[in-house]
């Protein structure tokens, strides 16, 4: 969706849904994802439609992703850091999943 005018000079690596990617040091995560060719970063909580960063300035909340296990981070306000683990968000978070897991683990 976005194209780099120059090669990355100071690369930092991160993963998005398990795929290794690179960004320029100090770059915002949302921009890095778009420049890496990612089409959408989440699915909407109501209809499940694909969504991608829209405003890049912290206003629209379309860029919400899970970063290092923390949900709903605004990717346009977050700089990429070496080794960051980024995951897309699929629809509404399953709030009961945690309890189901716990139950399953009980004998």
């Amino acid at each position, binding site marked *: *969706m*976005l194209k*780099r*005018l120059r090669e990355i000079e100071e690369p930092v690596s991160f993963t998005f849904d398990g795929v290794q990617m690179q960004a320029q040091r100090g770059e915002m995560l949302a921009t890095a994802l778009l420049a890496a060719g990612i089409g959408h970063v989440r699915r909407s*909580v109501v209809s499940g439609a694909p969504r991608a960063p829209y*405003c*890049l*300035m912290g206003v629209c909340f379309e860029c919400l992703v899970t970063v290092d296990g923390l949900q709903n981070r605004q990717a346009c*306000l977050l*700089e990429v850091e070496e080794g960051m683990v980024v995951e897309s968000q699929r629809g509404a978070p399953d709030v009961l999943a945690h309890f189901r897991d716990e139950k399953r683990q009980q004998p």
Partner: protein
Amino acid sequence: MTVRFVTAADDLRPAYDLVIVGAGPAGMAAATEASRTGARVAVLDENPRPGGQIYREITRNQPGARQYLGADYWKGKALGNAFAESNADYAARATVWSIEPADEPRDGERHRVGVTIAGAARMIEAAAVILATGAQERPMPVPGWTLPGVLTAGAAQIALKSSGVVPAAPIVLAGCGPLLYLLASQLIDAGARDMTLLDTSRPVLRWESLRRLPGFLFSPYLRKGLGLLLRTRRRIRVVTGVRSLEILGEDRAEGVRFATARGTSTINASTVLLHQGVIPAINLASAAGCPLAWNAAQRAFQPVTDAEGRTPKRGVLIAGDSAGIGGAQAAEIAGRIVAVAALSDRGLVARDVSAALINRLQRQRQRYFRGRGFLDALYAPRHIFLAPPDAQTIVCRCEEITAGKLREAISLGPPGPNQLKTFVRCGMGPCQGRLCAATVTEIMAAERGTSPADIGTYRLRAPVKPVRLAELAGLPHAPRALKAVTGRDPVDHHLNETELPS
């Protein structure tokens, strides 16, 4: 002197003379001016580096490598340097989620500012608060605007300034306002290819714009604006008189269908950039209890302020575009004016000194107000892009509420946007109405045949940005607050806790 970088909530002082929210032109100028007086100043800003959106990455970018950003952008360099040399405490990556104004800020009674830095929340106190939260783009709800591949023009400009990246071709820019042409020209200079600009402005020869023309002839924007227009028209395809717009695609934007007086056409697009002007970012001011008023010329709500930025909430002032759109250079001067006013109200600057200074600055600022009326009238968006007629068009992106659903709910008679919210959940998603408030007001006004001024807008409450429960729980609590929740004195509370069975 240089700014002190604050990277943890604990590194902030417990209290300041002045807390400034936002490090764009108004915030940086306010901090620079205030720190000259020896006042204790903190600047809290959401981004990693100062500049706001207009001067984004101004401290890191160098003209050589990113010449294409243009002369107006590089004007921010001097301000960025002055700010870096001020003695303010500067917290980057800081999210301000609440302002609790003291009811009567007499000695000892201070405003409380809720802020999160690096995952830790903190309440700090301020004798005066300046909100310099800038502007956001006016939402432009057209069919397909939620598809990936659609961004705001501002977003494309931010990506260009901060990362040197351009949208994938073919690119369609659609909407109205000076920023659209500025972006087109920057993208051309940066080397982007295959661009079409669909101009949705209404015809130029309208009475509202013409009667404001004389002021514009003396405006600093005149030559710049015309130059931009001509340059863009020479170099890319510009279609004027666009009166309807639809973004096509299944899972991403693939094309744009648009109509002019000559008929309907469809063009391919990988990236669509929408823009129809900017409006004040009012969420924080509104949640702090500052009253809003409708600005008919700019077609937006803005906080009520006097000429020096004071709101009716004593000690809460607003500077720059967040008090009404005036552009970066007017915002910079406003920042200085408002800082001097705030400090003189607190007795930190002598009255006669501040009066003379404010007078001089106000004369400087006047220059940028000239011709603003013409620009506002010239670029007033078409109504069809303010209140989408098509029932299927999404208005609230977070909760996916369509224009049709809103009209249905409005016909049931809710008195205003706040009640409408409870009917259909529009404005209740994570963006807290930032991307639908303007549209909801416009639709409601049109349905009721009245002015947006009579309809009003969402009432906002803190936190204006999401805060984690763990952050709130981690805040130090006063004994009084602990008693209110637990019903026991903190001492007993502590004792009882140790008695809990393990």
